[in-house]
């Protein structure tokens, strides 16, 4: 029986170019692309999550974006930058993780331990649902009976 062949289609992350000269919003966009490994992130959501992250993290976000822009501006592989320079940093690491979870869940964890999303829209567009081969509760992409078959993944 033939083994499942790993596909060749895993896309390599493109190196991020010239981040020194772009604003924090675009840096946030580029950082988000690398953190999530998404090919494309919708621009309205990038804007909204940037604002939410700014409100929550303040100067910690600025520091994160500056470091990311600086290190990747030299042509270093952004994945390596994140893994070795950012996640390992006591301040930048948590900030990056907050941003990543914001993309996945659509919200930021509050003091009570709950995930505060800013709108139904953000909840629905969290990346977690697609990543687990499902869909957000109340927004099925399916038809009657689809749960009988393996997930489209």
């Amino acid at each position: 029986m033939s083994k499942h062949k790993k596909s060749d289609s895993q896309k390599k992350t493109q190196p991020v170019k010239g981040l020194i000269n772009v604003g924090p919003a675009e840096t946030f966009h580029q950082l988000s692309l690398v953190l999530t490994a998404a090919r494309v992130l919708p621009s309205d959501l990038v804007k909204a999550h940037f604002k939410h992250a700014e409100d929550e993290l303040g100067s910690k976000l600025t520091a994160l974006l500056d470091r990311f822009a600086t290190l990747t501006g030299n042509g270093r592989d952004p994945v390596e930058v994140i893994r070795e320079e950012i996640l390992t940093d006591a301040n930048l690491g948590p900030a990056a993780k907050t941003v990543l979870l914001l993309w996945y869940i659509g919200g930021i964890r509050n003091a009570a331990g709950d995930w505060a999303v800013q709108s139904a829209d953000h909840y629905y567009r969290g990346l977690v649902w697609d990543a687990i081969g499902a869909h957000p509760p109340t927004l099925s992409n399916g038809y009657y009976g689809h749960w009988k078959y393996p997930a489209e993944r």
Partner: protein
Amino acid sequence: MPASNGKISAKDTFDVVIIGAGVAGALVACVLAQKSLRVLLLEAGETGGNREDLVLRYAAATFKGLGVAYAASDPSKIPGPEQPADPKDIKQARDLYYDQQGTEKYLSTYERRVGGSTWHWLGHTPRNLPNDFRLKTEYNVGVDWPLGYADLEPWYCKAETELGVAGDDAEWQGVHGAFRSAPFPMPKIWPSWSDLQFSRALKATPIDGLILEVLSTPSARNSQAYDGRPPCAGNASCVPICPIGAKYDASVHVKKAVANNAELRERSVVSKLEVDSDQTIHLVRYRKWDGTPGSAWGRIVVLAANAIESPKLLLLSKGDAVPNGVANSSDQVGRNLMDHLQKAVLATSSKPVFPFRGPPSTSGIEVFRDGRFRERRGAFRMSVGNDGWSRAGSPFTDVANLVENQGLFGQELRERLFHDVSRQVRVSCSVEVLPNPDNRVQLSPLLDASGVPRPQIHFATDDYTRSGFGPALDVMSAILRAIDAVPTSIDRNPLNYTGAGHIMGTCRMGFDRTLSVVDADCRAHDHRNLYIVGSSTFPTCGTANPTITIAALALRAANNILATLPQFPMPAGSAK
């Protein structure tokens, strides 16, 4: 001749006044309205927003508890165990409302709104088994019901047609002796991929010498277009809300009742049932949210306010004629409070099963719901979940853990997340509770935000129920081994359980008026024009989700009401 109608206007005079617009009240209202009777449906809660608004509220909510979609427009007017007077208290709502005085907390809650708790029920409709109605005769525990499965069976069929139940005739004919005289209205809800893996594995692996059959669970969930509602699309959000109405909720019958000229008065909190000198109850007093008092007069009054609010109202209505509360010469009102107590085991399967798709549960194992062992310990129903480890906060907890604790991101995060979550399984058991007079609802000296005494609850489990958990957990462990799944943990402490949301027993039915509140027709022994419908009338609770039994009893009671009405004519001189 009724004496108390003199001051009531025609617009407040009805053939039947029904208190509570949940599934029981709505069904009775619908049946009677279709016979062109003048029906009033009084509901303490409100209709509150269209379905899309409720869904969006849920999606935007930070704490996704049972009641978040249903927050009232003015919570202080309608406090309840899911809705605190102050929205920021939502996590503590239950114990801000229940005055918990028992050694164990009573865990199940309900919604106070038009349509009641069926808005957020799972939708499962297995029937009670024949022996569930005769525990005392068969096993010498608990009590017998004053009617049997065969008496209720035709009404089960009618209830299934009214609600729209999907099920498999071949699978369910004769399970534990429960014969079916009519086919299910709709073919079964398709089992999930996960169910099929369980089924296959269990067919090949006997457990304690038994081949466990996985049966699709009968559900009030459309498997095809039915009654103008669409088929299930697998939104996976039945609890707490179906965004498309494929899952039945009682707003269906409220609408039908109103379409047949029943009058719905919402935001009307009933405060007292007035007892006449001849022990009839015609006058119902209520207060609107804005404080305006109101009253309604019915030839017959039906109390359908759920198993906490119904006894509460009966006790609140005590007076000189009824010093122990309305319908309470037996002293059973509020007593015998029951629930189904549940334990879940979460596990990791060796192969992906793709949870978070389809209804939270589509199949179960029914074989342990009856047997000789019930002489010594409680029976249990087992269900298989399609909702992964959502009870532990998945998938949010999983992605948070992988990111925060393991530092994963990018493609690796996606792959690990899918790998882990796609293998999440859950099996659950639901154990029966025997009636115990000390498990009860009384009036607390503490008042709720609207100035009404809170329900004071005493509840404790006994050995009968606690010794049901052990065997259930053993079976669940064996099932998980059979499908090559590894449990995360198994909590054997019988005091650590969750409530099923099945509130039952507090106005139980029986032959003997000294030991019960209503008779087999749900008619109060003490007041012959008062009916009580809902799960408060259950003398024992078996292991089945109660709603279809509630519905069957309600339809049967409505039929009885039609026969009884002539005994209680309209007052002389009252306009029709």
